[in-house]
């Protein structure tokens, strides 16, 4: 009884900025601020070392990066860059979700690049080989998306299977499957060159765009709205998937089981959950998400996919890790963190175009932000502590702070509770 009342007190006393959600956001904002400050210092140092630049250049530089697409100049360019930024954020949202879901189950999915490649291959092959003269375009589109996602599910299940069945560290299997995927995709497209490679535009390094077969994601006029950018409804699909995942993870038994598996594998096993099944399922879902992102990107209809990729892995796969980390693995947070990462990236390319600095300042700032986001627990602790120090002061001076009132209310409750007993 006494314990319960204590809990009530704590809940009622929690000021706005101390709520867990709010303090997470504050911690992320502090990290972002830190990253920007370090980025500014780097630009400042360069401008001091370089005779052709002045200090004001570095200030202008950081403002350009911070402006993202808005520092493009005229309104037409701004709209165009904004549209493209939202489109490019789509696969990143999906790989971010992929990494985040695996993290929730206590797994580190560094295999998103491989799953991404498999998804791209599945979507491209299906969308380019089913003749749209026979089958309606929208059916082909759905089939392609499903094929890509399914390939990713299978590919992601491999590390999960190895982890569950053979107790092999998922990181090593993910890394191996990444490179296997890179070689398999190159191999498949190399042996089916005549059918898929874009000879028409002499872009022999790339696969035909899916619009070659008439398949493209509907845009609902978004591309026109954003000055003929690539934007289509895939960003909405990705956001919807994020919301669904949030609900699944937080409101369903299945999500609870996955999270329990992440907190303590042995305890969840003891509680009667099938922890092996959960590991495989979690990795399969993660693989499907990353692959779905790639499929959405390819099915846009105007993107060039480089097929001979056996030496490189897609950057969007790895960047899912920072996207997930920045959002503290919250599916809805991933939408914003992915868009933010692309926003800073666009700012970097604008900086490169407009000054003698280059675009690599964006990944630098992002890296520093991630570094600082590792301290989020420390920042949250500081926020929690700061209130404790202030409390006696407020009570002493009897300010307009709501805390004492809440205290009284809680005390009154306690008294009531006591009398009932």
């Amino acid at each position, binding site marked *: 009884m006494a314990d319960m009342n204590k809990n009530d007190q704590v809940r009622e006393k929690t000021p706005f900025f101390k709520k867990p959600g709010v303090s997470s956001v504050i911690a992320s904002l502090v990290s972002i601020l830190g990253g920007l400050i370090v980025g500014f210092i780097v630009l400042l140092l360069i401008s001091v070392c370089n005779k052709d630049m002045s200090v004001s250049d570095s200030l202008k530089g950081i403002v350009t990066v911070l402006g993202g697409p808005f520092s493009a100049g005229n309104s037409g360019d701004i709209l165009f860059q904004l549209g493209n930024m939202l489109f490019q954020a789509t696969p990143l949202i999906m790989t971010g979700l992929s990494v985040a879901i695996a993290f929730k189950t206590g797994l580190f999915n560094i295999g998103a690049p491989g799953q991404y490649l498999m998804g791209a291959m599945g979507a491209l092959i299906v969308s380019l080989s089913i003749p749209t003269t026979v089958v309606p375009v929208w059916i082909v589109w759905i089939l392609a998306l499903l094929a890509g996602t399914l390939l990713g599910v299978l590919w992601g299940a491999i590390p999960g299977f190895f982890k569950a069945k053979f107790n092999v560290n998922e990181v*090593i299997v993910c890394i191996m499957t990444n490179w296997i995927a890179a070689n398999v995709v190159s191999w498949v497209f*190399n042996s089916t060159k005549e059918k898929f490679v874009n000879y028409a535009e002499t872009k022999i390094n790339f696969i035909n765009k899916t619009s070659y077969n008439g398949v493209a994601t509907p845009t609902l006029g978004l591309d026109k709205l954003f000055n003929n950018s690539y934007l289509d409804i895939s960003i909405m699909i990705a956001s919807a998937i994020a919301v669904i995942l949030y609900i699944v993870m937080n409101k369903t038994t299945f999500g609870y089981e996955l999270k329990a598996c992440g907190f303590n594998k042995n305890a969840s096993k003891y509680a009667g959950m099938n922890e092996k099944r959960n590991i495989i399922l979690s990795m399969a879902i993660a693989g499907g998400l990353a692959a779905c992102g790639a499929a959405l990107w390819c099915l846009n209809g105007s993107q060039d996919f480089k097929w001979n990729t056996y030496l490189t*892995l897609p950057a969007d796969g790895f960047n899912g890790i920072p996207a997930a980390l920045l959002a503290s693995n919250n599916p809805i947070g991933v939408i914003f963190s992915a868009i933010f990462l692309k926003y800073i990236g666009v700012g970097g390319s604008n900086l490169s175009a407009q000054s003698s600095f280059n675009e690599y300042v964006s990944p630098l700032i992002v890296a520093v932000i*991630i570094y600082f*986001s590792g301290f989020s627990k420390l920042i949250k602790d500081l926020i929690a502590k700061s209130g404790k120090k202030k409390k006696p002061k407020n009570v002493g001076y009897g300010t307009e702070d709501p805390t004492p009132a809440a205290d009284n209310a809680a005390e009154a409750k306690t008294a009531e509770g006591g009398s009932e007993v």
Partner: protein
Amino acid sequence: MIFLIQKTLIFTIPLLIVALAGMYAERSGIINIALDGIMIFGAFVGALAAYLFRGNPFFVDHNQLTFILSMLVAAIAGALFSLLLSFSSINLKADQTIGGTALNMLAPAIALFIIKIFFAKDQLEMVPAVNSAGQTKDFGYVILNNDLGPVGRTFFDKAYISTYIGIALFIILSIFIYKTKTGLRLRACGEHPQAAASVGINVFKMRYLGTTISGALAGLGGYIYIATVANGTASGAVAGMGFLALAIMIFGNWKPLGIVLGAFLFGFLKCLGVIYDQLKININGQDVYFLKELGLPMYFYNLIPYVAVLLVLMFTSKRSRAPKAEGIPYDKGMR
């Protein structure tokens, strides 16, 4: 055959050193997922140092000295860079995966940012330089020794001094971690830091030591990689070698002998994929390119090492055992 062993050695040494780097960090209790980033950083600083050294004709004359000095610079750079990881994960108790990921992103960003600002290029290549006699000499550290027997030629012709340094380092560091007091203390901090602290071991110091050695080795490995495998080009990437080394460390069960085995197996299979079409055997006076004549595509040979690692892991994983306390920040109150 000689050719194959030589090539295998070139691929193996960077993998071996960087996998050893991972082992040192993880045995002290810190997950070093930043190996790739530290390699990139070491490679970049080493290449920059070699570039600056070679502005002076003396260093162009003494090529091997330049190599050794720039390897040293790369190792120091790697050690300093890894302090970022140590600071966040040891002092501030931050998540080690996050810190490592940040370093992995930071290293290419710094390298490419500086290369583009000062060289207006996307990669830093080792260019020919002028020696003291006024001749232009190409960049290259390879030692040629053609007048040795077959055995001598295998190990001393077309060799790099880094190969011997790598092997020597491997032996010294394996003995250090298993046979010295400090090595034992370091391993204790990765297994049960609270127990180690209770007998007076400074856990923070040991973890700093492990991570710093790890950083130095990874930086060194990164520079050796670009100097021997990647034609001396620092391009802000090491083709995922850091992650492969991480995989080999897990494959080797966090033990030096397992790691050296894994590195050789992987290095051999990996170089098979690169040179499969040059391999020949002499049958009745005729050169037969036996692998090329099978008609399988290059991608098949590139796949082999990764599939092989997975297969081996499937059968050996029951014995797999990571250091118990890795990834967990040391908390005195947890005793």
